[in-house]
């Protein structure tokens, strides 16, 4: 009997071992695709919107990656420049500080034209910043924290304007999730606007990975998604399971938080927004404002609503950070 079964069992054993190794091999290839994408070039600058700006280098906190960014003073109604209130603008994944897909540069310009200074930068591995693994906010939160350090203690490019008195943040998509993670750790971020953030990166990736096609393999089988996330951790030290703003958003209270989401978002479903709202409003001191934008897909709220979006965000920052003062000291 033993001799009869020897060959089939040997065959099965080798087959299952080889399949396991092949599974790991393909998963690691997908992981490599997950953590890297060639950076997209920046075509326009704030100068195209008639704004004065300076190119800056912002070191990330802890790992000191030199991130490239724009320091844009706000423009007061009397035409003078101000950096009294600075907003850290955080772009989404696989794009840059210009982010034409969601009109981020235009939004940045609109904030500056409303008296809010802006520090906009390319997160690690994107735009003009140095190559680094993409981690859905887990590592990128150090970039936002570096931006806070830069505004508080760094060498600012227009010293005659002084140093910011108030710091806020605005993030879109993964940038919003990253900002939520950073703001939970850094009380110097005094008001937060989060547009289209996810609550937890892993389920989003597990759902989205099979929709993608990669070179050689083509359409990715769904069963490879969870192991690709594990492989990203083993091979590149990127913990995609740990990018969970839903766990830390409550720590933003009592600072004001504006959560925006498109009602027709099919990339980060509205359930993410609901989870974030539920978690953010848990503390008794929470100051959470919400805006669900009708008929709007992922990260398209500003693109679809334009002036209404800017009005809401500026009003929110005016309430959260205080109204900018003109050169005479009167409220603008």
């Amino acid at each position, binding site marked *: 009997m033993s001799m009869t079964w020897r060959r089939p*069992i040997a065959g099965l054993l080798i087959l299952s071992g080889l*399949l*396991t*190794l092949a*599974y790991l*091999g393909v998963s690691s290839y997908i992981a490599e695709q997950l953590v890297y994408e060639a950076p997209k070039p920046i075509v326009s600058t704030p100068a195209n919107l008639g704004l004065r700006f300076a190119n800056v280098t912002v070191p990330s906190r802890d790992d000191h990656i030199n991130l490239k960014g724009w320091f844009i003073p706000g423009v007061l109604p009397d035409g003078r420049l101000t950096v009294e209130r600075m907003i850290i603008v955080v772009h989404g994944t696989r794009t840059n500080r210009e982010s034409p897909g969601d009109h981020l540069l235009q939004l940045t310009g609109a904030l500056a034209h409303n008296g809010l200074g802006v520090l906009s930068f390319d997160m690690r591995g994107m735009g003009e910043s140095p190559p680094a693994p993409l981690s859905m906010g887990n590592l990128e939160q150090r970039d936002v924290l570096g931006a806070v350090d830069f505004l508080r203690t760094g060498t600012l490019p227009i010293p005659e304007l002084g140093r910011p008195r108030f710091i806020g943040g605005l993030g879109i998509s993964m940038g919003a999730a990253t900002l939520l993670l950073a703001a939970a750790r850094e009380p110097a971020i005094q008001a937060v606007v989060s547009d289209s953030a996810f609550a937890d990166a892993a389920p989003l990736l597990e759902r989205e990975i*099979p929709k993608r096609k990669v070179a050689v393999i083509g359409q990715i089988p769904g*069963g490879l998604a969870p192991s690709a996330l594990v492989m990203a951790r083993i*091979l590149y030290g990127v913990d995609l399971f740990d990018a969970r703003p839903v766990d830390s958003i409550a720590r933003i209270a009592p600072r004001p938080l504006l959560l925006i989401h498109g009602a027709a978002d099919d990339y980060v479903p509205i359930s993410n927004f609901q989870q974030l709202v539920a978690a953010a409003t848990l503390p008794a001191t929470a100051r959470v404002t919400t805006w669900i934008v009708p008929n709007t897909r992922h990260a398209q709220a500003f693109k679809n609503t334009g002036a209404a979006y800017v009005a809401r965000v500026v009003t929110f920052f005016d309430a959260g950070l205080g109204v900018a003062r003109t050169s005479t000291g009167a409220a603008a």
Partner: protein
Amino acid sequence: MKTIQAFQPLVALIGLAALLIALVTVAQAVSGLAGFLVERQVVLIVWLAGLLIASVVFAWVVRRTLRRDASRSSLLVMTLTVLGLASPLALMLLQHPAH
């Protein structure tokens, strides 16, 4: 003693996995000095080459083990090894069918 020998494929697999992860960690640390663009390629090449070598070594260990001992107990141990290897894979692929 012979039954213990039947565990060799499983032990080999665990050992190879541990060795491979250690190798990747070293590759990560060394190539990381040259920047992430180099690191991501070096790590992937080391890992995939390691998997290829591991699969050859594993097949050789299975063949050798079965040549030395094809008793009922050792076959049973190896059947359990097959199940141990195949079940997580099957479960993962069945729970997440291709879209």
